[in-house]
């Protein structure tokens, strides 16, 4: 095995972006690696909840998924969340270019799309509730609300992070060399989107 020292293989040490983590063995910053590991672990959390849902999706009493789901509505909100991934990635690319104006625009857009999604979900929950699907109604309802609720909480936390970034940026505390912060929040955001991609297909579309 070649005994290269870390220094030789790290990123260009002169790059301003790299002042924090340029000397890691892998060349990836600690934060980013940490976030990815965390997302890997989240897979098992959501996997568990999705599994639970699949086991419980036919209720013994109360409304069934078929009776209650409003696919056109959910399709629209899924689409909204999907597009927020685009705005997010554009925000990341904006800050990497040093375009702080666009960064703010895209961050705000992402946060707004995310909020639209959450609002849609809240609306959906109230609609379901009025149709007689309370949290304790059946095994299906408990599993459904828990899964989608967990996802909704993740989205909400993502929105909080986006808004914080926006404020940071407006106060001039988000220079390019911290672009990675935006990228890492972006990873989280995309992951939340990915989870919804699964939920949309597995929960809503497949009977």
């Amino acid at each position, binding site marked *: 095995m070649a005994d290269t020292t870390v220094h030789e*293989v790290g*990123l260009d040490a002169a790059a301003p972006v790299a002042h924090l983590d340029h000397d890691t063995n892998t060349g*990836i910053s600690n934060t980013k690696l940490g976030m990815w590991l965390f997302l890997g672990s989240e897979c098992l959390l959501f996997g568990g909840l999705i599994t639970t849902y699949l086991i419980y999706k036919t209720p013994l009493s109360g409304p069934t998924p078929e009776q209650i789901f409003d696919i056109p509505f959910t*399709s629209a909100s899924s689409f909204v969340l999907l*597009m927020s991934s*685009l705005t997010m990635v554009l925000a990341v690319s904006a800050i*990497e270019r040093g375009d702080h104006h666009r960064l703010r625009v895209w961050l705000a857009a992402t946060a707004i799309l995310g909020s639209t999604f959450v609002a849609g979900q809240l609306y959906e929950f109230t609609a379901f509730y009025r149709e007689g699907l309370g949290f304790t109604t059946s*095994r299906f309802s408990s599993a459904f609300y828990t899964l989608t609720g967990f996802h909704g909480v993740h989205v909400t936390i993502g929105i909080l992070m986006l808004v914080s970034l926006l404020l940071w940026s407006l106060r001039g505390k988000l220079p*390019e060399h911290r672009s990675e912060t935006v990228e890492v929040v*972006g990873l989280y955001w995309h992951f939340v989107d990915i989870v919804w991609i699964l939920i949309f297909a597995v929960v809503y579309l497949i009977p």
Partner: protein
Amino acid sequence: MATDTRHFGDSPVDTDVLDGAAEPYPRNRLYVKIAIALAIITAAEVAVHVFPDAFGGAGSMPYVISLLAMMALKFFAVAYWFMHLKWDNKILTWAFYTGVILAVAVYVAVLTVMQVWGGMTGVGVDPLGGT
């Protein structure tokens, strides 16, 4: 994995090169294209749901498989392009997909052991049965 000190894959675009750059960022166009593709796939998913009979009826094998395939496509597209796995160090891909694969493996096993495929278990049908 052993020689992890090597730098894998394309290095991310060095930001210093782009500092203050005014010209459009070439990757953005790619991002938009991907987003359009994702939108189209989503539309296709909904279409399958709306016209289940074209896919052998709701809940049939082809129906489920086509939905799962489109879901997987979207999943990987977001991870690969939007989350930069394409350009980043492969160790990230490796870390994340270990989680994904593990999750799929164990939970599919659970569903199999609990006999969820093809209709529900007898579970709950007869909660206090037999008295």
